[in-house]
């Protein structure tokens, strides 16, 4: 069966007018409506869209893995000429893993923690083909080498927790490739990984697509990743494909207002918070049972026309002159995009005030007590986790300082020290003229506490689900002593809701009745309740959908501008950092490796780590040319950091033994741009910029 299947030369997969629904207590919920897709041998198609748009449902339907409350209610999925709906469970089992393979988002959850990786890999061919153990073993070893895992024999005998997240995802991809499938489904395969690790996986995926001629469906919310991996792209919105075409057609000549909106909402290199601000898409995704008649995007669209846009289901129409470029919009030909100038969420440049925060050689070590007998004998019972090492930087009034780094770089520890949840081991944290490094939050005055507040990352976790929004805001106001009279507090709560542009009756709502973006707005309101002079925002928008990210970012900047607040923006998203930060601090393994103004950090001279980080960020712009730098190896442990330069184990520009033995100097130029590297500044200055725009855009970017 599998041999004649693999000789097949028609389309690998055809989805025709596919509609999928979930059946819940509330009734039938249409998840995917009228989905069409034809995939030929070697094609790679991206499905891009926000949460709830149905992209993962499509993948599950192709796997015929709908759970007990989902079902295909219309259309068909034809795999190599066979309608998947007509196959028996046994035939489907032969298909899954053998001909159609899937890579999931969370590698740790996709691997069985109690089995060696070798066992799990060998299971695939042993289960699907009539081969012996030795052959399965050699196949597994070979495929591990194909996904560029060092030392395949060692990986084979390891358990999942013994290798890093990036390596785990490589193993999952290897497992998917083992039986040489005709179709590979990748569902957000890099979302759980750090950017530099993601870059490696993306390169691998692009490489295997070429090498094995596997057809691929790549599901992502990130347009930049689609650009890096796919030939064609389907943009999905609320269960429908709204635009389809080649990557070039869709990225350069998008026709659908939603696609246009997505590209205006993400911080591309040309965007600028004063000259070319981001344009959020207003409103929010409709719930599946509240979709409007006609065009689902209608209520959020600036080009909505009464009568034509809301009179029945909009059909996919081909864009004239571009075969294969379809758009589900009845007005795509009428809209004059040149005349369309939507209002962005930027504003005037702000002048920076005096110094608010000054960190001087701050260190934070955590003690780990090792109670093992071995440690008792050796006498090293206390070891240190060096979470922060010699951190020094300053922040001015109404300035936005971004702290950039991957997981484990110590940025969260730093935030904890600043907030007073931890005290510094050494050094100074001078906030408004007072050293607070040794003041835990309980010892700070309410005014001090209220003047540094935080916006958190996870909108689903940031508000207490047991209390109403109003009660939570009121508590903060009372706690910081802003108001004490009951009516004044309620008045202030309403003011705060106005400030973050939420309706006032949200005060009595519970957090679960709010969308992610709305919760994050309440989180911002809470941070600004005590009139803070500084707000620490820890990845405030990374968990939000693209179309709401811009609105929340814009709101944060508006409020900051109004109150002249200092914003400490912790993020791994360099595109966003470039867009909104004034100064950037790059951290690696507890050390600051580079800091300077945003322009200085984003152009040469670079610290080698900054350079690698910049090259790793996916950018959804076809006119951008990037240098490709893939970091080798894993992030070292903070308990046992490398000697000398912390980055020496992975550095692509390592000089030699000096990097392993001596701490790198902090080289500072006249304007305050600091790089901590052994490579002389003159050398670093000669480095080419990572990002180049190789063709002119419609309008010049404000540099």
């Amino acid at each position: 069966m599998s041999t004649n299947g693999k000789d097949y030369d028609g389309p690998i997969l055809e989805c025709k007018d596919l509609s999928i629904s979930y059946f819940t207590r509330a009734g039938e919920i249409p998840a995917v409506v009228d989905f069409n897709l034809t995939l030929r041998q070697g094609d790679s198609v991206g499905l891009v869209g926000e949460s709830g748009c149905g992209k993962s449902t499509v993948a599950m339907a192709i796997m015929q893995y709908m759970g007990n409350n989902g079902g295909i209610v219309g259309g068909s999925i034809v795999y190599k000429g066979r309608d998947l709906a007509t196959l028996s469970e046994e035939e489907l089992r032969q298909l899954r893993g053998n001909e159609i393979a899937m890579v999931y988002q969370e590698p740790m959850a996709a691997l069985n923690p109690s089995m060696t990786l070798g066992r799990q890999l060998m299971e695939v061919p042993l289960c699907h083909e009539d081969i012996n153990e030795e052959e399965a073993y050699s196949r597994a070893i070979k495929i591990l080498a194909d996904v560029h895992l060092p030392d395949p024999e060692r990986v084979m005998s390891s358990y999942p927790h013994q290798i890093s997240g990036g390596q785990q995802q490589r193993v999952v991809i290897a497992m998917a490739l083992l039986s040489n499938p005709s179709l590979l489904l990748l569902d957000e395969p890099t979302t759980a990984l750090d950017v530099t690790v993601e870059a490696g996986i993306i390169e691998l995926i692009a490489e295997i697509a070429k090498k094995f001629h596997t057809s691929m469906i790549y599901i992502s919310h990130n347009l930049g990743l689609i650009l890096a991996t796919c030939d064609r792209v389907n943009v999905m919105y609320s269960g429908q494909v709204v635009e389809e075409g080649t990557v070039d057609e869709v990225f350069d000549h998008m026709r659908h207002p939603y696609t246009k909106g997505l590209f205006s909402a993400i911080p591309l290199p040309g965007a600028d918070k004063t000259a070319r601000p981001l344009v959020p898409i207003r409103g929010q995704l409709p719930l599946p049972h509240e979709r409007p008649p006609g065009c689902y995007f209608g209520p959020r669209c600036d080009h909505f026309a009464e009568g034509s846009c809301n009179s029945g289901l909009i059909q996919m129409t081909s864009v004239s002159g571009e075969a294969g470029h379809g758009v589900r919009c009845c007005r795509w030909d009428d809209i004059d995009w040149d005349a369309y100038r939507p209002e962005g969420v930027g504003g005037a440049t702000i002048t920076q005030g005096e110094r608010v925060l000054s960190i001087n050689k701050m260190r934070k070590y955590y003690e780990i007590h090792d109670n093992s007998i071995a440690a008792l004998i050796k006498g090293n019972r206390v070891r240190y986790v060096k979470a922060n090492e010699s951190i020094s930087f300053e922040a001015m009034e109404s300035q936005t300082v971004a702290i950039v780094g991957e997981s484990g770089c110590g940025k969260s520890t730093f935030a904890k020290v600043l907030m007073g949840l931890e005290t510094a081991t050494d050094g100074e944290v001078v906030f408004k003229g007072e050293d607070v490094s040794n003041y835990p939050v309980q010892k700070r005055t309410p005014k001090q506490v209220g003047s540094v507040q935080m916006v958190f990352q996870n909108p689903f976790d940031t508000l207490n689900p047991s209390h109403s929004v109003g009660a939570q805001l009121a508590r903060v106001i009372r706690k910081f002593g802003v108001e004490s009279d009951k009516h004044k507090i309620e008045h202030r709560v309403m003011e705060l809701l106005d400030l973050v542009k939420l309706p006032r009756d949200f005060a009595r709502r519970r957090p679960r009745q709010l969308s992610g973006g709305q919760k994050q707005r309440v989180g911002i309101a809470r941070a600004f309740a005590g009139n803070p002079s500084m707000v620490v925002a820890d990845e405030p928008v990374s968990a939000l959908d693209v179309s709401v990210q811009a609105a929340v970012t814009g709101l944060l900047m508006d409020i900051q501008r109004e109150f002249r607040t200092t914003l400490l923006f912790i993020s791994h998203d360099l595109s966003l950092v470039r867009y909104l930060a004034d100064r950037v601090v790059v951290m690696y393994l507890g050390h600051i490796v580079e800091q300077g103004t945003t322009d200085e950090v984003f152009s040469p001279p670079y610290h080698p780590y900054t350079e690698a980080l910049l090259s790793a960020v996916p950018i959804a712009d076809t006119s951008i040319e990037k240098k490709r730098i893939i970091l080798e190896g894993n992030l070292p442990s903070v308990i046992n950091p490398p000697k000398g330069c912390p980055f020496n184990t992975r550095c692509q520009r390592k000089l030699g033994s000096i990097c392993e033995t001596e701490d790198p100097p902090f080289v500072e130029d006249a304007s305050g741009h600091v790089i901590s590297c052994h490579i002389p500044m003159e050398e670093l200055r000669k480095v080419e910029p990572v990002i180049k725009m190789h063709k002119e855009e419609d309008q010049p970017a404000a540099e």
Partner: protein
Amino acid sequence: MSEQTIEIPRRESSILRAIKSVALLRESAVGMVGLAIVLFWVLVALFADLLAPFPPNATIMPLVMPGTEAPDGGMFLLGTDHIGRDILSRIMHGARQVLIYGPLATVCAYSVGIPMGLAAGYVGGLTDEVLSFIANVILSFPVLVLYVIIIATIGASAVNIVIAVTFASAPGIMRIVRGLVLDLRSREYVFAAQTRGEPPWRIMAVEILPNARGPLIVDACLRLGYVIITIGVLGFLGLGLPPPDPDWGGMINETRQMAMAFPHMALFPCLAISSLVLGFNLLADGLREVSLRD
């Protein structure tokens, strides 16, 4: 912001919300059956004085089989015991005892176990180690032996039963609460409360505890069932409520020697206990089912 008329929306009362969440239980058939059984016993206990055909401690006619007519009219629906008391009336009045002391003991156990669990889970460190050690020591005792020792030491009375149940159940409750707290304390809203300098007791009581209520309510229902069994067992061992007041466990104990000849004397109190326990267990199942659904 300048608008002077600020409309402050009223939140719905907590009673209304409680009713709404009970209404959710309708979706679970099992839960509804459990609720019906429990409500049945609650009503019986409340109106025992009106419903019971005879006074519970009156000796009328010994060793009568169910369905026999009483001398002065009426009927011994479930028969009488060895000294001539009407079993139905005794069960009805016994329900009152069980439904007072069962919940009371459970509430007491929770009011000791919850603070311990909160402290162990949130404060951690030495506090956790000491509390967990105490809990482990208590839990390592066979429960029955523990009860016997406690009651034998402090004497058999209603209050002492409550004390004994509290002592034996609190460590288990502490463990559950501790586990829930360990999960909840790393939530960002707890972090937010810490960064605004809230005192630890407030974080535990206001930020963490309300979010643990779901599993705790389910556990309380299950535990209530076990406490009722415990009260029955203590009664059976002669460590329960002092006679002659009706006590389900005691009723079984008093009549067990004659159970071969007159099975109804022990059977009906047994059925009473198991139906009530079953009711609470089904209710717990239903609550869990409803809470897991979205």
